[in-house]
């Protein structure tokens, strides 16, 4: 088994008719993903690409198509509302791709999600991919914006805050003939739904996952928390990389969450935490896959 999603998972897309949402829905359909519904208020009854039915609300889309997961491509001012609509519809998983959501909106969303069954991945993330068995991993479940073809079905779990750095790690694995169980981008914002630690626990419990690559970056302390847990509990080899060793303090490096402030969240502290937890630290981002493979 993979984690969170399988090739059979039925997904709906919130914001399916926006240019960004539409483009990536096409790519997911081409990858063989079960995109069964779209949601755009006011466009209910239409079809996306003459194929996928569009609904006015998430609840209706889920009820009529059996979708259990949402991919959210709604613009930042409305994204918090879109996440809570997915929560209200009782979906299992909401993956929010949107970049640029105000932090306080996410503070409210996160508070409102407490005690609810829906898990959130993101926002500001590349999404989740469980590779399929076809050519270039076709037939898998691709939620979000990651390129499908770089994946390969296999046994390594990948978790990262960053998009292109995830692709880099995945591609290194695939080029070495090593496949992935599930690849997850948790997003680069300071407030997000699922943490590194949440994903690591799922990979630890997943029999199909035999090794884990965890990619972190400066800011916050989520990597340290994951490392502490790994030290005590993780039964699988973990290799990692922390981006931002050269970033100056007090400057936000692209991602809203990637900032060293008040002496907290430095790359050095995170690398130290990784080492103390027995996590293999890749000396450069070119060696993420090799570092893990040496441990296996």
């Amino acid at each position, binding site marked *: 088994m993979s984690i969170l999603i399988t090739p059979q998972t039925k997904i709906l897309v919130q914001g399916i008719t926006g240019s960004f949402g539409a483009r990536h829905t096409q790519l997911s359909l081409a990858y063989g993903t079960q995109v069964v519904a779209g949601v755009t208020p006011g466009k209910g009854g239409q079809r996306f690409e003459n194929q996928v039915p569009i609904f006015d609300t998430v609840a209706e889309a889920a009820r009529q198509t059996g979708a259990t997961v949402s991919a959210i491509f709604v613009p930042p001012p409305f994204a918090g509302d879109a996440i809570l609509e997915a929560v209200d519809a009782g979906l299992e998983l909401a993956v929010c791709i949107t970049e640029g959501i105000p932090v306080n909106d996410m503070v409210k969303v996160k*508070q409102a999600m407490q005690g609810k069954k829906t898990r959130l991945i993101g926002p500001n993330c590349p999404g989740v991919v469980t590779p399929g068995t076809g050519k270039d991993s076709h037939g898998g479940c691709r939620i979000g914006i990651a390129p499908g073809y770089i994946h390969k079905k296999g046994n390594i779990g990948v978790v990262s805050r960053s998009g292109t750095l995830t692709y880099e790690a995945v591609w290194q694995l695939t080029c070495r003939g090593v496949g992935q169980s599930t690849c997850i981008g948790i997003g680069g914002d300071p407030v997000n739904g699922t943490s590194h630690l949440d994903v690591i626990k799922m990979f630890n419990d997943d029999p199909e996952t035999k090794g884990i690559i965890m990619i972190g970056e400066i800011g916050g302390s989520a990597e340290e928390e994951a490392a502490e847990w790994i030290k005590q509990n993780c039964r699988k080899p973990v290799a990692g990389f922390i981006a931002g060793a050269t970033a100056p303090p007090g400057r936000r490096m692209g991602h809203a969450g990637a900032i060293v402030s008040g002496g907290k969240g430095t790359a050095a502290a995170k690398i130290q935490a990784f080492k103390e937890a027995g996590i293999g630290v890749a000396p450069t981002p070119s060696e993420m896959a090799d570092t893990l493979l040496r441990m296996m």
Partner: protein
Amino acid sequence: MNIHEYQAKQLLAQYGVAVPPGDVCSTPEEAQAIAEKLFAKGEKLVVVKSQIHAGGRGKGTFKSGFQGGVKLCKTAADVHEKAKAMLGQVLVTKQTGPEGRLVSKLLVAAAPVIRKELYLAVLLDRATSRPLMMVSTEGGVDIEEVAAKTPEKIIKESIDPAVGMMPYQGRKLAVALGLQGDLIAQGAKLLQGVYKTWWECDAAMVEINPLCIIDGPDGKPGILAVDAKIGLDDNALYRHKNIQEMRDLAEEAPLEIEASKFNLNYIKLDGNIACLVNGAGLAMATMDIIQHFGGSPANFLDVGGGASKEQVTAAFKIILSDPHVKGILVNIFGGIMDCNVIATGIVAAVRETGLKLPLVVRLEGNNVQAGKKTLSESGLTITSGDSMSDAAQKVVKAVGKS
């Protein structure tokens, strides 16, 4: 986005936070006029404060040789004199770097007699995803030092965003700060006002250092935000028109302003190897790998997920405006983005800018073969890197030689 102290105090005052009376000005005459009004109201002392987006102003030195970006004055004539010495001059503090910042505005405000300096800040607690108010009896000093040496002197209160900061939380912190009698209610009201400013303005951080217990005009003690610093969440600026207008472009690096016009995320650094990358994480990692192989990155530059030919050209021009740059590393993982589009953009940019510096390009991903062909058939001297590490080593070596 950051704003000036006087702007931060304007926002705080709107939410009921007591600040010393005063006003902002940009000429010595205006400064004198503000001071005259304050003295006429019975103030004994007036402070003249340079308005720049950097701390350490009081201990700073102007390039003119004038000492101190914050001055206390007993007369309006003295205010005029001090204002004249500061306005139009470049102030260097420990936070500005050696280039310093031009002072074009001053805050002239009442300087009451201070009995005790306290500390107060509101920020996001990332571990809980909730707002956090932090106070300390150790105000007026570097709070990071307090946190490192005497962490027990920092008192934290987590705030439930659903209900906001409750009055009891304000009273609890006021008591923890050692306030007594009438000052407890006054302090609690001020703390709630600061929280409200943080929340309603979508601030990333509000810091009041020092928060002061003062001798009020009636002889009774009062509590005032004597300094104030506010940083805002850029993602939320769209819903605060009044705050957008507070942006001071003079405080931002010109190249960073130029980059933002093209939706490029650029941050200038001190090194000599420029990089152009897609994605923030990969861009940071590219800087790291340059340093790992003995080089020094000149910038952070994320061209985003869907870089166009125009963006790549603009990015090259921005990179090349930095005179320290001795070589360029382009690192693109074009997962969805067509590598050939990027390659075409690079070729066009090299031709347009007449680039003479060593250029190493690492392309990976979608349509990569066509992209590499475009580069090699361009007739330009572009070195190809097979992996991030190969490309980084090549650019470090090329720059080392030049």
